[in-house]
């Protein structure tokens, strides 16, 4: 259905307590800081956040964590030199952590968006990540069964959108955005610029408009 262009607070107004929110970015590259700020202002809590990292410094995801709105983090790499907010919450037992290898994080969201019920993945076989999990040998190789990760909402940052909601990204800030856009019921994209329909090259569109529900322009 038609993509709406709105302000950040309007964009996140339907996020509910207990929602699973997919948050784009690899560190700060591609992190939708203004959408996260709006989510903090909006006030929803008890959230499960799916994002590669668990916040950097004191802004963006780290600010959401600091505000006490997150019950659980699903991520691949929470421990960084500037992840002091998460570190403190984790050591104080105030936040749950589900550690997922980075490729499984991406592929599990891709599966959600692509209608795949589950998939056999070679990553993590023989490691603590696979403990207690269903495995299977296929063609002589062992795999772990992995299930989709779906979001109620995805907050992503892209570079330019057209008014239909087609998105292009910039360099490695692309990272998780295109995958998360497919995996959430509602996808909200923060972009630097919105152009008229027809201005993006159809061969170079990365996220087609079908995956984008709301656009927020943050110059």
């Amino acid at each position, binding site marked *: 259905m038609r993509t709406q262009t709105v302000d950040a607070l309007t964009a996140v107004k339907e996020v509910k307590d207990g929602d699973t929110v997919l948050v784009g970015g690899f560190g700060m590259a591609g992190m939708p800081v203004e959408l996260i700020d709006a989510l903090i202002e909006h006030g929803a809590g008890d959230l499960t956040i799916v994002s590669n990292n668990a916040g950097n410094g004191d802004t963006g995801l780290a600010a959401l964590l600091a505000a006490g709105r997150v019950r659980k983090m699903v991520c691949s790499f929470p421990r960084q030199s500037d992840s002091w907010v998460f570190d403190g919450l984790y050591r104080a037992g105030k936040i749950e952590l589900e550690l997922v290898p980075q490729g499984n994080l991406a592929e599990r969201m891709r599966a959600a968006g692509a209608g795949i019920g589950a998939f056999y993945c070679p990553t993590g076989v023989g490691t603590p990540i696979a403990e207690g999990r269903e495995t299977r040998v296929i063609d002589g190789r062992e795999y772990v069964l992995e299930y989709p990760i779906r979001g109620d909402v995805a907050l992503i940052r892209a570079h330019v959108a057209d008014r239909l909601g087609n998105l292009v990204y910039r360099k490695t800030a692309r990272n998780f955005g295109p995958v998360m856009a497919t995996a959430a019921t509602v996808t909200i994209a923060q972009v630097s610029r919105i152009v008229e329909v027809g201005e993006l090259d*159809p061969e170079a569109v990365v996220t*087609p*408009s079908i995956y984008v529900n709301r656009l927020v322009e943050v110059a």
Partner: protein
Amino acid sequence: MALDKNELARLVAGDIPDGAYVNLGIGQPTSIARHLSPDSGVILHTENGMLGMGEVVGDEQADWDLTNAGKQPVTELPGAAYFHHADSFAMMRGGHLDVCVMGAFQVSAGGDLANWHTGAPDAIPAVGGAMDLAAGAKQVWVMMTLFTKSGEPKLVPACTYPLTGKACVTRVYTEVATFHINAEGVRVAATYGIEAGELAARLDVKLLP
């Protein structure tokens, strides 16, 4: 009066919600596109890798790198996007298309769809993207004649032809009646040139009031 093909296509087009992302199957459903107004904001998907597909064009305007699922040359509308086949079917299978409209050999009262194989032993089977659409689109609508040339109903208690998908069809558009199907059963939404009693008499399917 029963609807002609053009009227039927216009009827289906009118029922597609504004702004919907829609896949129109090969054959008769393709003609629905002509009746969609640009204001509707409806965006057409073609499974061979495109959103924002325009109209079918003749050979003289053809770009053979730009075709629809039926391999007819088409145009590209502003705001289009191209993607490869795995991405295109991820879009379909993942439940992102609002509506797809396909033809059918048979539809069952439970919404089962049979549109890929007559089961004839000498037929060469060909399924294309029909099973993926049946499994994936949010709404699967069928556009067909209600009766075969020999007068057999195509809306049936249970399909006798091999299935394309189970319990997937939510609406059936035919030249004499439109049906809505849900968990309760089949309801006649409208009739065209046929009495409700005659319609019920010619079908083996229980029709909800």
